[in-house]
């Protein structure tokens, strides 16, 4: 500790340079935290998926629909506890067309059995069930549009054209991050009744709960096999696998983001290395004097490494503080509200925070290696000569 004072005081010697360096590290760390949080949040959405829930869709594409009667067949598969269905509705709020939010027609009697992470007051559930035009919305969506329980709203249909009137029966909250809190769910009958006879009784996908998560692969196989010989074949997978296949479409972006985060750390290292190298060059005579009075090369290297690690720690701590505020309360709040399906929980993960600060300190020290080696190898006589 008796040597630490010198390393710390050297950091504060050229305050302007130190401030600029720390600012550089801070911005680099904020960028690192934001990029890493995109990756962890995206990947985390997979981890939040319910392990005992299956999704069954048309074998060709999500866009094609399944016969409604498939739901009953799935319910009869051993191991399936409950099954429900939904159709993507894709309507917009005419008062705010640019604001995207998920809206789906669901089978109200069974929906909350399969998605029990969605929490509503019993009165609101009863109101929803009894009102064919009733809809429930997530608390984030309610806040965004200022919608309240009992309010009548009109949505503008896109896949199913026309004006669609709803009454808000309840505002749900979620007990798990697997649920998007900015969605709207309404009665499937309301949609089905409005369709032409040939379009009726089709569902977008079937979601089912199983009694044992370990049986998920086997049950998925059983379901798909059951429909193999029919006109419409299916693909069944766990909710997690579904998320992963969705994520797979963005794997290149995720890889690019990972590379970007490493590049950011390397830039940070170069910023520190450059600052330390400048300081060492300026202090050649002082290190020469210290070597003269008996300090060993290891001491000198230690001072330089301590200094660079301290700069890293300083920048890391400030960067983490500001970065957490920026990510959690800035872009995080925005993304959770506006892209809750993709980023249900956009917060800096503890492991990301540790990597950021630890990385800043370690990379700071690594950045100081070259200048430290040079300082330690200084020829005493030559350095002393520079004094004169």
């Amino acid at each position, binding site marked *: 500790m008796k040597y630490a004072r010198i390393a710390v005081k*050297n950091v504060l010697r050229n305050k302007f340079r130190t401030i600029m360096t720390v600012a550089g590290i801070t911005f680099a760390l904020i960028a690192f935290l934001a990029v890493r949080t995109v990756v962890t949040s995206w990947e985390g959405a997979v981890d939040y998926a319910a392990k005992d829930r299956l999704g069954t869709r048309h074998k060709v594409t999500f866009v094609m629909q399944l016969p409604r009667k498939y739901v009953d067949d799935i319910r009869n598969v051993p191991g399936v506890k409950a099954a429900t269905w939904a159709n993507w509705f894709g309507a917009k709020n005419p008062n705010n067309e640019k604001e995207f939010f998920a809206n789906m027609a669901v089978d109200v009697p069974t929906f909350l059995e399969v998605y029990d992470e969605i929490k509503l007051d019993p009165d609101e559930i009863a109101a929803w069930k009894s009102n064919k035009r009733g809809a429930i919305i997530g608390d984030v969506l309610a806040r965004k549009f200022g919608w309240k329980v009992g309010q009548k709203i009109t949505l503008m249909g896109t896949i199913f054209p026309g004006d669609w009137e709803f009454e808000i029966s309840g505002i749900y909250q979620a007990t798990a991050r697997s649920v998007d809190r900015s969605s709207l769910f309404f009665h499937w009958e309301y949609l089905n009744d409005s369709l032409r006879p040939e379009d009726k009784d089709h569902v977008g996908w079937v979601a089912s709960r199983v009694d044992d998560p370990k049986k998920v692969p086997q049950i998925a196989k059983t379901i798909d096999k059951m429909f193999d010989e029919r006109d419409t074949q299916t693909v069944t997978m766990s909710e997690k696998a579904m998320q992963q296949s969705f994520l797979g479409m963005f794997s290149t972006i995720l890889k690019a983001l990972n590379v970007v985060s490493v590049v950011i750390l390397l830039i940070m290292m170069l910023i520190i290395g450059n600052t330390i190298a400048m300081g060492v060059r300026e202090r050649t005579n*002082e290190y020469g004097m210290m070597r003269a009075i008996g*300090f060993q090369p290891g001491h000198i290297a230690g001072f330089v490494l301590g200094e660079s690690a301290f700069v890293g720690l300083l920048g890391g701590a400030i960067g983490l503080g500001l970065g957490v505020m920026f990510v959690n309360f800035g872009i995080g709040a925005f993304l959770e509200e506006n892209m809750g399906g993709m980023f249900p929980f956009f917060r800096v993960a503890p492991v990301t925070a540790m990597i950021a600060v630890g990385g800043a300190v370690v990379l700071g020290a690594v950045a100081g290696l070259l200048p430290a080696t040079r300082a330690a190898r200084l020829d005493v006589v030559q350095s002393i000569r520079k004094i004169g």
Partner: protein
Amino acid sequence: MSDTTTTADTKADSREEGVYRGTVEQKAIIRLVKVGRTYWRGKEKIEVLKDLDLTINEGAFEALMGPSGSGKSTLLNLIAGLDSPNAGTITVGGVDLTGMSDAQRARWRSNNVGFVFQTYNLLPVLTALQNVELPLLLTRLSASERKKRAQTALRIVGLEDRMSHYPRQLSGGQEQRVTIARAIVSDPKIIVADEPTGDLDRENANEILNLLERLNNEFKKTIVMVTHDPAAAERAHHQRHLDKGKLT
């Protein structure tokens, strides 16, 4: 293993070493035998010192003079254990420095030599007290003991009221006195001073020379001083002149 010489011996070597004051028996603390130091500038060989013999007695105050490039600083660096010779042997305080590694010489320097440089070379981020304490960081002394010793050293050089001042808050003479306090804080036997008054006006130079004389007289420090200034050299007990790597 210190050598012992008498005034008679000293007189016998008077052409190289000059004549000491007094007639008491004196111990040699620094002894250089057939020392050579060569540098290479590209392919050019520069022989700075050649076959140099020198004995300095304990408690001496010696001035090394000579024109630029005569080898004064090289000789001082060899005596201080900062550099090692290409030929010959150097014994200081009975210790042969010639065969020592860099690390061993660094350890030896921290215990046996105090340095005073022309441009003070204090660490600007440390106070006068902290600068003086610097050599003691290499010891196992407690923080309070280090502080006590540094305060004592600063009192000796008359800067007890400037302990918490930073170098930028001190005059040139005061900075050099801090350097001297740093040189004596670990109680070394030898002080080497390279142009200690080179950057000072006459008044401050005299104060520094008075201080060096006091360290020599009262604290029995052996002082080897390189200087261009004849007035500074006059204050030494003995002057040696170097020219083209040889003592004249």
